């Protein structure tokens, strides 16, 4: 294979693996939006909170990676519970943009808590997948990216199973499509909201672990980066569409890696937004097409 094709393929592989992380983040945003019709801007902070909580057992007891993953999930669920309580449950009926602002306020508070606890210095994280890239033929593959892909496959399989094969999932879908009808039929909106929050927060914990492993250090600025990627993917895929989030995440990943390789940093940054505009102009409902709202 000629050199350029090899390079393009390597970046395609990287983009698909890394894009599955984007897909997970978008998935979290989009599930919550689908069910609750609200955007949770504190999601990025919830993801980082989980990762930071997992640092406690790491530094104190040098626990293995799977324990860190579990504690990240636990931490994210705890923080997610707090976010749901303060930013959504306690919020009376008001402007549809009010939850946007309460979650922004929460983002600031969680960020500050992290900065205070860590002194704004990045903290070294576990490297459970090894320190060297795997040589697969002409390609170098990062083992932690492979792990992200596997984790994403597992998470999405679980989520699809939950949503399409369980009663809870059916209730969530009912609330997403027709909230009033679902309520009349006896579904407790409050319960579904809380459970959706728990689900997306657990997902946040998984994302936090794998994202910070791939970066190598836990830094407070990562929350904003995660939020930005999540929003772009969610819009690319269509708000409320899980399939769209997966497509959008993979597309964004591949696009970033290919433009980075061939065109450099400036184009990588601008092209992601131009793609966003293009999708919004050509197919405003997102990649996965119109969804019943």
């Amino acid at each position: 294979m000629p050199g350029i094709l090899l390079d393009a393929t390597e970046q395609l592989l990287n983009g698909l693996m890394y894009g599955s992380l984007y897909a997970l983040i978008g998935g979290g945003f989009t599930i919550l939006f689908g069910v609750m019709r609200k955007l949770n801007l504190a999601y990025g902070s919830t993801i980082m909170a989980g990762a930071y909580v997992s640092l406690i057992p790491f530094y104190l007891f040098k626990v293995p990676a799977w324990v860190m993953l579990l504690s990240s999930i636990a931490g994210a669920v705890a923080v997610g519970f707090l976010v749901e309580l303060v930013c959504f449950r306690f919020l009376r009926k008001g402007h549809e943009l009010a939850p946007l602002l309460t979650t922004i306020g929460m983002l600031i508070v969680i960020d500050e808590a992290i900065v205070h606890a860590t002194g704004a210095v990045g903290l070294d994280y576990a490297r459970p997948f090894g320190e060297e890239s795997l040589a697969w033929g002409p390609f170098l593959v990062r083992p932690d990216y492979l792990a992200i892909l596997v984790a994403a496959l597992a998470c999405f399989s679980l989520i699809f199973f939950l949503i399409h094969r369980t009663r809870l999932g059916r209730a969530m879908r009912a609330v997403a499509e027709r909230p009033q009808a679902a309520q009349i039929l006896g579904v407790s909106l409050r319960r579904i909201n809380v459970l959706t929050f728990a689900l997306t927060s657990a997902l946040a914990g998984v994302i936090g672990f794998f994202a910070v492993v791939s970066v190598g250090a836990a830094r407070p600025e990562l929350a904003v980066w995660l939020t930005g990627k999540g929003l772009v993917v969610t819009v690319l895929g269509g708000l409320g569409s899980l399939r769209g989030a997966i497509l959008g995440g993979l597309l964004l990943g591949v696009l970033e890696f290919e433009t980075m390789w061939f065109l450099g940093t400036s184009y990588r940054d601008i092209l992601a937004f131009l793609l966003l505009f293009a999708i919004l102009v050509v197919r405003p409902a997102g990649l996965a097409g119109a969804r019943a709202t």
Partner: protein
Amino acid sequence: MKRLWRIGSVVALGALLAWPAGAGAFQSEGTVRIGAMWALSGPGAFFGKSSHGLASLAIDEINEAGGLVVGGKRVKMQLYAEDDACNPEQGLAVVRRLATVDKVLFSLGPSCSSVAEPVFGTLQKRLDDPGDTGLQLLFFTDTATKFGLAKLSPWVFRNTPDEPAMYDFVVKYLKENYPDLKTVMVAYESDFAHSASTWKLALQPALERYKYHQVVEVVDWRWLDNEFGAQVAKLRRANADIYFSLTHTPSTCPSFRELRRQRVKPRIIIGVTSIAAGEVLRQCPDVAEGLIAPSNFAPITAKAKQVADKAWERYSADSHIHSVPAYENVHLMKVLIEKAGLKNTEESLLEDRRKVRDLLARVGTFQGVVGKIKMNPDDHPVRPRDVDKDMILVQVKSAKWTVFWLPANLKQN
């Protein structure tokens, strides 16, 4: 109605809190007020807090030795440290707070060049020009290193590294001591002015001047990027002997890990001046092993060790290239304040600042912690009011910054 009261009370609270905490007169209260604006919170907090600690140490030493003699009377130094959070707008408000509410004689800082730009840009540009309404507050900067900041105003003096000179020396040193290493690759942060200018205005001209090394690859990333696979793959292909990683800690650590992952092993890795601090040792000491950086500070003398130890003990402050100048500046200013014949009252504040400013412009050479420092005067053609000082090359060895090279006039003991 109740809600209106609630709104009103919050606004009033905000206004009340902005009220100054009562100004005390200077000579009559026995203090000389010195100020500082640093990044004490937010992303630059590491640098702000270390400068705060080093400056506080110097003030402690001065006050414990009896303070200063001003107008025949013994007075103490009092520090008014304000937080700009590395935010330019807050900096613009804080500088006026320091000048007119805290009423300080001079200010240390800022930590971030992005804050220094607008703050210095709004200072008086022409002394004695009544038509120039810029602020008149003296700055003696310890950290903000961006090129040309001191040129913005005659009220700005800096005790910061001279990067063009440092990298010129580094290139010459490499040519003379590692003549077999001829190829060079460079990484810099395209959205961080300090990094981009270190490449374009310091390193690149130096390489062109010596015409010895061949630059085979230049890559760039954003300083808060998380993914470096493409750039490192390009470095891997370039496979140069010398790698200049002109990057700050947030991107240095992950990019070094990527170098390890892709098995890229340049013979020598040289960093940017700001990397020569404790941050990188805390975040990725393993991959940073062997990294060399130009610096102005290392605990090579008994005095330097003492300062570093005491700063850590008392204030948990890291002593490094950007924080030690705060210590040096405070001690120098003590000497100048005593020489200046100040009245040290609220009314004489502007003229007192001017007196100290003029002395600082003429101070010539003074003693730093490690060696002598020369302050350039106002009419220096290239770098007015910046300093020339000895440079040291430091290297990470066993998770500590150790001395790699010392100039002949600095002795290690």
